[in-house]
């Protein structure tokens, strides 16, 4: 009875999230350094990913939940973070005259959005809103794989598919017609560490960076998780043995 109910419950639980993906999408499954219970982020890749975000994506996509101080996770030290922040102009104010003014960013600031507001964003993009990327890998089913496949998924439209004005064909996008023009063509960024800058390599770096942006506490979560599971396993064994001892005299 017990086992059967458990199996049934498990099946029921798994059925829930499994239905998320749909449509004729081509998802490329990849092995990410952050997958699995011991997975960690690749700091060098995240730094490259940030550079690619800045040079390729940031013109249209905000990253509003990330503050410069968070870049300590990418391996930057305090001085480097200050320097990065200072390269951005951040709106502050009002000052004593009641005016808003621009000043260089500080570590505590969030990354400023490329748009004043949502309507300005739509107006600049044919009515389509470029989504904020802070949570994008968690806001899509199979986020990392999906994002990678999307970035690398721009293709010639197959015979018989008409691509309307302002739309683009993408093999990974649900419905295949996406408003975002192809962002990567290869060699879009020049990495200071000389790393590969093919479309796939940049996409992969971006996924590393954005996965961190969505789930910055992942590494500590998994670390505590391993310890917790270890502790609870011992607890389970001990409590089971203790139960056998105590029940030994019940007939």
């Amino acid at each position, binding site marked *: 009875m017990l086992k059967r109910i458990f199996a049934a419950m498990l099946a029921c639980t798994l059925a829930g999230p499994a239905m998320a993906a749909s449509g004729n999408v081509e998802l490329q499954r990849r092995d990410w350094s952050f997958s699995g219970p011991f997975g960690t982020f690749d700091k060098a890749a995240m730094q490259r990913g940030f550079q690619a975000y800045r040079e390729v994506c940031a013109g249209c996509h905000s990253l509003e939940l990330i*503050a410069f*101080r968070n870049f300590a996770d990418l391996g930057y030290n305090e001085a480097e973070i200050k320097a990065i922040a200072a390269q951005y102009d951040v709106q502050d104010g009002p000052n004593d005259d009641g005016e808003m003014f621009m000043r260089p960013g*500080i*570590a*505590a600031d969030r990354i400023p959005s490329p748009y004043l507001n949502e309507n300005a964003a739509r107006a600049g993009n044919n009515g389509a809103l470029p989504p904020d990327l802070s949570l994008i890998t968690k806001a899509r089913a199979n986020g990392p794989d999906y994002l990678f496949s999307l970035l690398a998924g721009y293709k010639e439209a197959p015979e018989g598919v008409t691509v309307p004005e302002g739309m683009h064909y993408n093999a990974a996008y649900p419905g295949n017609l996406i408003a975002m023009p192809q962002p990567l063509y290869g060699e879009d960024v020049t990495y200071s560490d000389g790393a590969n800058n093919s479309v796939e390599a940049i996409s992969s770096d971006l996924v590393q960076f954005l996965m961190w942006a969505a789930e910055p506490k992942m590494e500590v979560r998994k670390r505590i998780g391993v310890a917790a599971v270890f*502790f*609870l396993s*011992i*607890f389970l064994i*001990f*409590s089971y*043995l*203790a139960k056998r*001892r*105590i029940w*030994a*005299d019940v007939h």
Partner: protein
Amino acid sequence: MAKSDKTQNPAKGDVQEPGRRDFFVVATYAMAGLGAAAVAWPLIDQLNPAADTLALANIEVDVSKIAVGQSITVKWRGKPVFIRHRTADEIARANATDITGLRDPQDDVARAEKPEYLVLVGVCTHLGCVPLGQKTGEVRGDYDGWFCPCHGSHYDTSGRIRKGPAPTNLEVPPHNYLSDSVIRIG
């Protein structure tokens, strides 16, 4: 209504509970207690300041725009900080004061690294009101520094308590000069 009417065992008190001395039984309950204690920590620690709050725990202020004899008030850790560009006269008076008779004796040089700029936490050490004296025209008390209207504490041009109920001088927050005109507070 003794339990023996209803249940088979164990008679508590007179007979040992089964397993009371058993290693696994003791270890199980010990681990349960340990686990509960471990879980308590995150629940308590979440009360501490969060990362975004801590990120604003120190601020940088450019003092070059404060005219002589003027003060500005900046917000630091949710409290007002007074930065006063003191006049030569104010500095001289602060230094001339004989500190031996003061309630909280402190030399002015110990309170202002550069005598021109005095940096103070603008919170009365009595019961936490914000003293007057920042804006021109405000009452500045008998010693021309700051005056707390709540219960009448008078502070001098070095922010030292001179009269009234406050027990100590206005606090000087930890700060240092990043350059000639930029102060980092906190």
